[in-house]
C-alpha cells in the first residue's frame, strides 16, 4: 500500500473572499467612500430603514445603494423612487452577499461622486454574518415581532456587528418583547455594540440613528 503523506495547509477557507474584501476597503478608503453593510431577517425592515436613512443623509452625503435579493428588483425600485442610484444584485438563490458580488456592483459606481454606499444584504441572519463584504461598518436590524431571543439563536451575527437597530418599536405595546433582556443579551455578546430603538413607520428614534451614522462617516473621512 502506498505511503500516506501529510501536507500542512493552514489556509483560511475564506481567504480569497477576505483578501478581496480587504482590497475593497482599501479602495474605498482612498476615495473616502464609507460602505455600510445592513443585515436582517426577511421583513425586518431593511428597505424601510434604508429609505429613512437616505432621507436623513440627502443634504449631507451623496449616497448609493447595493440591493441584494434572491430574485426580484422590488427593493431597488423603492430606493430609486427616492432619487438615489441603486444597483440590484440578483443572487439567484444564494443566501448572502460576499466580496465578489459586492465588487461586481461597485464596478457600476463612480466613487468620485459618492460619500456613502449602503449594502442591503440578503434577508438572513446566518450566512451574511460569515462573509466579509468589504464594508466599513456592519449593522443588523432586529424587529420587535421577531422576539428578544435572537441573540441566543444567531450569536455569530451579534459578534460581527458594530450596531443593532431594533425596529418596529411601535409594536412594543402589543408584543411579548423584553427590551431590557434583549439589551443585556446583546451586550454580553458584544459590549461595544451600539443599540438604537426605532420605528421606521412612525420615525421614532430615527434621528439618533442618523446622527450616529453621520458621525461615523465624518470620522472615517477625516481618518482616510
Amino acid at each position, binding site marked *: 500500500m502506498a505511503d500516506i503523506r501529510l501536507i500542512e495547509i493552514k489556509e483560511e477557507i475564506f*481567504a480569497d473572499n477576505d483578501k478581496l474584501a480587504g482590497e475593497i476597503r482599501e479602495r474605498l478608503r482612498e476615495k473616502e467612500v464609507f460602505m455600510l453593510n445592513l443585515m436582517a431577517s426577511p421583513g425586518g425592515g431593511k428597505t424601510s430603514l434604508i429609505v429613512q436613512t437616505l432621507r436623513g443623509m440627502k443634504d449631507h452625503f451623496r449616497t448609493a445603494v447595493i440591493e441584494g435579493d434572491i430574485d426580484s428588483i422590488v427593493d431597488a425600485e423603492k430606493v430609486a423612487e427616492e432619487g438615489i442610484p441603486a444597483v440590484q444584485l440578483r443572487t439567484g438563490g444564494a443566501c448572502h452577499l460576499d466580496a465578489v458580488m459586492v465588487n461586481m456592483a461597485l464596478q457600476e459606481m463612480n466613487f468620485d461622486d459618492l460619500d456613502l454606499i449602503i449594502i442591503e444584504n440578503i434577508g438572513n441572519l446566518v450566512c451574511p454574518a460569515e462573509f466579509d463584504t468589504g464594508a466599513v461598518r456592519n449593522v443588523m436590524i432586529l424587529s420587535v415581532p421577531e422576539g428578544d431571543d435572537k441573540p441566543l439563536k444567531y450569536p455569530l451575527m451579534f459578534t460581527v456587528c458594530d450596531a443593532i437597530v431594533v425596529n418596529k418599536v411601535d409594536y412594543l405595546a402589543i408584543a411579548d418583547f423584553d427590551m431590557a433582556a434583549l439589551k443585556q443579551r446583546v451586550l454580553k455578546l458584544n459590549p461595544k455594540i451600539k443599540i438604537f430603538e426605532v420605528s421606521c413607520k412612525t420615525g421614532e428614534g430615527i434621528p439618533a440613528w442618523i446622527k450616529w451614522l453621520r458621525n461615523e462617516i465624518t470620522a472615517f473621512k477625516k481618518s482616510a
Partner: protein
Amino acid sequence: MHELPVTENILKVVLRHAEEAKAGKVVRVSLRIGELSDIIEEWLQRYFDYLSKGTLAEGAVLQVERTPVIFRCEDCGESFPVKVREVHDIACPSCGGGKATFVSGREFFIKNIEVI
C-alpha cells in the same frame, strides 16, 4: 446554510495543494471550524462527495475539529471557553465578572490533507 460555497472553497484549496505535491489521491482533509459557525458537517461531506467526483479528492473523508468559543474577561483579563448555547449568560470563571469580549470561535481553516 451556505455549506455549498464553503465546500467549493475547500475543494479548490485542497486540489491546489494536492496538485502542487503531485499527489495521486487525497484521502483525508482536516478542517478546523469554530463553534460559532452554523455549518452542518454532514452536509459538508455530502457536497464534497458530489463536487469532488472525478478529481484527485474523490472519496476523501472530511474530518472536522470544532474549536470552542473563547471570551476574555474585561475585568481580570482571563480567557475562557463559552458554550454556544450559553453565550447569553457569560460569567468569568475566575472573578465572576459579566463583561467579556469575544476572542475567537469563528475560525474556518483547512489544517492539512493526507495524500497518497
